[in-house]
């Protein structure tokens, strides 16, 4: 009984983990290339959720079709914030970019609140379920999972096969060296920031396909923390590391929920969120370069 429940939850965890992983790739990409921690990460996920919600409610648009819209909006937001704020702070102390991205996050939240209000919203996209024996998986969740894996693979091939992808990897390795070899580092910074934000906004669409309720301007805070845990699991500067970190995190979160639920007199959901914070501290303490990276 408990094993069946556990394996059911772990399957859900794996599906959610793929989305979590995808939702963290943008954070890791930006940190890897620009060495900027996007503290406003969750707000961009929230923007993606609102784009989905708005397209679905106002135009009746299928959330899958919202993906390209979210990506273009995200790239545009990324370019705007890069040229208006981040570019001017690249050489400033870390404090400046931390506070700037933090403020960008707040700005986004408040703008969305101004437009949509602060109540919790949701949508219903009925496309059926599949029964896996130990658990029932709505098709929307499955689509979101497949979407995450496909996007992660596309990013992988883009990195490996294209010129701009190679330029980006060279900047991650050694930005001075890349500059010497004729890479336009300024352009790579702008592109990476835009791409990172684009991916993050897209992940907001995928997350609402997994959890189509609870959409509100302040939903991002929890995801920021989760994304940091996942990014740190995966070594912080590697988008693929982040993807696998997401899978691990999804498993831990859902597995621990099942186990915490066995303890009488506690709130298992709150404890899983506490656990994610503990994991973050423990990994930072013992292995700040990430679990997956060789020393």
């Amino acid at each position, binding site marked *: 009984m408990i094993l069946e429940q556990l394996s059911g939850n772990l399957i859900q965890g794996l599906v959610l983990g793929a989305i979590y992983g995808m939702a963290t790739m943008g954070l890791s990409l930006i*940190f890897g290339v620009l*060495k900027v*921690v996007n*503290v406003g990460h969750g707000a961009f996920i929230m923007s993606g959720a609102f784009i989905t919600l708005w397209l679905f409610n106002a135009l009746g648009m299928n959330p899958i079709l919202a993906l390209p819209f979210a990506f273009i909006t995200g790239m545009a937001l990324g370019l705007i914030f890069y040229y208006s*704020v981040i570019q*001017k*702070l690249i050489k*400033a*102390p*870390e*404090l*400046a970019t*931390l*506070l*700037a991205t*933090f*403020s*960008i996050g*707040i*700005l986004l*939240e*408040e*703008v969305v*609140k*101004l437009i949509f209000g602060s109540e919790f919203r949701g949508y219903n996209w009925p496309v059926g379920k599949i029964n896996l024996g130990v658990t029932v998986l709505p098709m929307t969740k499955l689509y979101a999972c497949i979407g995450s894996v496909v996007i992660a693979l596309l990013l992988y091939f883009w990195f490996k096969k294209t010129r701009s992808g190679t330029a980006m990897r060279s900047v991650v390795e050694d930005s001075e060296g890349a500059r010497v070899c004729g890479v336009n580092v300024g352009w790579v910074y702008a592109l990476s920031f835009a791409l990172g934000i684009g991916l993050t906004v897209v992940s907001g669409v995928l997350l609402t396909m997994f959890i189509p309720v609870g959409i509100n301007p302040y939903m991002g*805070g*929890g995801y*920021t*923390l989760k994304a*940091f*845990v996942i990014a*740190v699991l995966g070594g*912080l500067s590697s988008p693929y590391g982040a993807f696998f970190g997401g899978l691990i995190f999804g498993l831990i979160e859902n597995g621990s929920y099942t186990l*915490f639920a066995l303890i009488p*007199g*506690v*709130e*298992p*959901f*709150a*404890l*899983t*969120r*506490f656990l*994610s*914070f*503990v994991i*973050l*501290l423990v990994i*930072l*303490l013992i292995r*700040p370069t990430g679990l997956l990276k060789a020393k």
Partner: protein
Amino acid sequence: MRNELEKYYPLIPVFAAYLAMFLIGKNVTGMWQLMGMLAFYCALGQAFNIFLGMTGYVDFGYVAFMGVGTYGMALGITRLAHIEGLGVVIIIIGFILSLLMSTMLSIAVGAVALRLRGAYFAIATIGVNEGFRYLIEGARIWNGSEGMIFNAQLNQILGREAASALSTFWADIMVLIIAALAAFVTLYYMRSKIGYALTALREDEDAAKVMGINVTKYKIIAFITSACFAGLLGAVSWALKTPYVFPPEVFEIHYTVEAIIIVLLGGAGTLLGPVAGGLIYGISKYYLSIILPGFQLLIFAPIIIIIIILFPEGVVGMLKSKVKDSALARFII
């Protein structure tokens, strides 16, 4: 040779500002509440500045220390209220508990986070308030998500009149005292070995290490001091002023945001900065909440970005460079 007293001249404008707040609040009708709020923001800024300003590290989980401070006072009052005849002693025990709890949490967080540099430090702290909140709610510690309401106990301990005077008058006075104390400690640190070590660390941590400065030690000192003041502030302006505590409220990241805005507006690492920042922020927030209720953050978020890009030194930082060679220079740091 420098006059010993001259070292403390910069405290004069700070204390003058606090005294002015007290006098305006006391003598102008209807101003007490606004002055209380301004005092809270100045104190928050002073306390936060001890760590952020002196080390250049951002602690995004700062509000957690205010939260546990609130819980310290709340626990003191609720657990001891049934003992007859203790009276004010309970409040004092509450303060001691607040200090102990914020110190313990800051040691626990600092032990992990302060080993990390820059961005990694910020990442480690960003979940402290949420993590602690979910621990309290999840494991149902101290009444879990229901929180504690201790109006009745406070009335029982002090009597109805004294309890109401405490929450409407004395709590604000205590906030002013905390702000003044934090300013004093800031200046004391600035003028001692701690301040010089932290300046070296803020400018170049590796160079400071090579010079044989035990950077970790001084970071921990600044971190714990800053956390203690946050704990006291939580105990006074949350537990005593409004005698209840709910986990989502006292661990709300919003207060960290306000602390950051105040310190940046005024000028990080300056003594007078948090006062200037607290006053500017508090007054504009007060009037914005009348003119444009609910949109304060929409206005403040772009302001922080502009300050970071255009005036990273803040108001007092700019003032400092203006008065550099004049007689005022001794008073403004």
